[in-house]
C-alpha cells in the first residue's frame, strides 16, 4: 500500500507480519530482544531461532535479505568473537599454543554472542523491513505519548522525524544536482587526490546547507499557514487500530519468552 516510501529498508507487502499494528510490532520486538538475552543455554537459542525464522517465513521476505543486513556487521562480529575466545581464560582448556589458549567457557561465550547478535539483527530487520519508516515514527509517537505528561516533547520529536523522512529524497536529489553542476565546472569529486576531493566537498556542502535552511524557513511558514501550533488538540488521519491478530502475536511472543526463561532455569 504505502510502497512508495522507498527510503530505509522497507519491503512493501501484505503478509500477516506487514499487517500487524506497528505499536504491537515495536513491543513485540522489545520482548524478542529480552527473550534472546534471557536464556543461557543452547536450547534457549534454538527456541529463539525457531521464533525468528518462523516470523521471517510469515513475512514472505526472502531470507537472503536478512543475510544482507547481517553481512556489513560480520567483520565486527568476527573480531569480537575472536577477542572473546582468546581473552576468556576460565574453565577447561581445549586448545593452547604458546600464550594463546581457548577455553570451553570462552568458546561458549563467543558462540552465544555471535548467535544472539545475528538473531537480534535479523529480528529488528524484520521490523524495519515490514514497517514503513513513517508508520514506525507514528507508532513510536503513540507509544511514548504517556511521556508528554512529564513534558517530554514526544510530538515535536515525531514531527521532526517525519519531516526528515519527507525531505530525505528531496535532499538526495538536490545533492545529485549540485554535484553535477560543480562537476560541470571541473570540480573533481569522484576523481583526483584526497585533498582536492575534500576541498571540493565544500562546494557541495555549502550550497546544500544553504538550500536546506531556505527550505526549512519556507516549510515553517507553510506549516503556520496551515494552522500548525504543536501537538495540542491535534487529531490524526492515520488511525492505528489493533486487531485480534495483534493480541495473538503478542501472546505467542510472551509464550516464547516465558518458555525461554523456564528452559534457562531448568538448565
Amino acid at each position, binding site marked *: 500500500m504505502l510502497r512508495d516510501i522507498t527510503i530505509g529498508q522497507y519491503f512493501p507487502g501484505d503478509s500477516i507480519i506487514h499487517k500487524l499494528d506497528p505499536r504491537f510490532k515495536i513491543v513485540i520486538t522489545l520482548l524478542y530482544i529480552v527473550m534472546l538475552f534471557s536464556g543461557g543455554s543452547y536450547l534457549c537459542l534454538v527456541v529463539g531461532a525457531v521464533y525468528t525464522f518462523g516470523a521471517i517465513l510469515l513475512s514472505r521476505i526472502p531470507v537472503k535479505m536478512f543475510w544482507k543486513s547481517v553481512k556489513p556487521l560480520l567483520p565486527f562480529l568476527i573480531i569480537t568473537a575472536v577477542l572473546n575466545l582468546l581473552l576468556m581464560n576460565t574453565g577447561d582448556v581445549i586448545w593452547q599454543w604458546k600464550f594463546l589458549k581457548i577455553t570451553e567457557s570462552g568458546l561458549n561465550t563467543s558462540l552465544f554472542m555471535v548467535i544472539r547478535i545475528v538473531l537480534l539483527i535479523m529480528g529488528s530487520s524484520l521490523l524495519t523491513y515490514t514497517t514503513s519508516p513513517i508508520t514506525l515514527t507514528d507508532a513510536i509517537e503513540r507509544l511514548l505519548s504517556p511521556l508528554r505528561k512529564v513534558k517530554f516533547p514526544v510530538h515535536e520529536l515525531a514531527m521532526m522525524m517525519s519531516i526528515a523522512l519527507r525531505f530525505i529524497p528531496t535532499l538526495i536529489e538536490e545533492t545529485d544536482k549540485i554535484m553535477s553542476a560543480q562537476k560541470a565546472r571541473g570540480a573533481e569529486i569522484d576523481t583526483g587526490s584526497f585533498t582536492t576531493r575534500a576541498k571540493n566537498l565544500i562546494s557541495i556542502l555549502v550550497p546544500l546547507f544553504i538550500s536546506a535552511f531556505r527550505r526549512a524557513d519556507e516549510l515553517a511558514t507553510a506549516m503556520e499557514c496551515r494552522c500548525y501550533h504543536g501537538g495540542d488538540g491535534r487529531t490524526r488521519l*492515520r488511525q492505528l487500530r489493533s486487531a485480534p491478530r495483534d493480541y495473538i502475536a503478542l501472546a505467542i511472543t510472551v509464550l516464547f519468552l516465558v518458555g525461554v526463561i523456564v528452559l534457562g532455569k531448568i538448565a
Partner: protein
Amino acid sequence: MENIIEIKGLHFAYESDEEGKKPVEVLKGIDLDIKQGEFVAVLGHNGCGKSTLAKHLNAILLPTEGTVTVDGIDTKDEEKLFELRQRAGMVFQNPDNQIVSSIVEEDVAFALENLGVPYEEMRKRVDESLKAVGMYEYRLHSPSQLSGGQKQRVAIAGVIAMQPKCIILDEPTAMLDPQGRKEVLATIHRMNREQGITIVLITHYMDEAANCDRVVVMDKGQVVLDNVPEKVFSQVDKLKAIGLDVPQVTELAWELRKAGCDISPEIISEEECVAAIQKLFAD
C-alpha cells in the same frame, strides 16, 4: 457582492539589517477591495511588493500602517488567527517546500489535523479535496514521486480541505513546466467556478492574468493599474515601461494601431486577434 478582502492604506516596511539605516518601505499605501467569488491576478515584476502583499492577506506579515480585513477579520486580531488562516488559504511558489508529509493524503489532512477536526469528517474532506484537484488516485503516493504540477495540486487540495472562502497563490507556477502550469491553472479556475472560492493569483506571467476577471498591476509598492484584463493590457506602453509583457496578440494589435490601422487595442485572445485581422482585410 460582498467584499471578502478589504485593504486600506496599507504600508509595510522591513527593518534594515544594517544599523542606523532607515527601514525599507516595500508597500507604499495600498487600497484594494476584492469581492467574494472574484478571480483576481496581481501582476508585477520581482521586487514590486506583490508577494509582500500576499503575505499580508494571511497574517504572515502585519501592516506597519493601515488595515487588512479578510472576511471581516482584522489580520491583527491574534485571537482569530487560525480562523483567518482557515478562511484564506495560501499556496506558495516552491512545491517541495510546502509539503509536510511523506504521504499525499496525510499532507492534505495536515491543516485539519492541526485544527482538531474529528476523524470521520477529516476523512471525508480529504477525499473530496483530492478528488476536486484530480489527485485521488495518488493519495497513497509519496510526494517525491510526483511532478511539480501534481505537487502544487496536492498543496491546493491541502488548502481546499480547510474549506476556505479565498485562496491566495503566490507565484504557484513559477517553477513548473508548461504542462504543470496548465494543470495548476485549470485547477484553480475550476475551484473558482465550481466552488465559488475567491482566487488571488500572484504572478508575473501575463498569459495567466489574461484569463482572470480582474488584473491588478503593481509597481514599486503601489497599485498602478486595476481593471478587467482587456483594459489593462491595452496599456502596452505603461506595462512595458515597468518591465512586464503583454500577450503577443495584444502587442500586434497595438503595433498595427500605431501604424495607423483601425484595430481595437483591447485584444487579448487569439480568437479576437484573428477576427480583427479578418476584418482589416474584409473592408
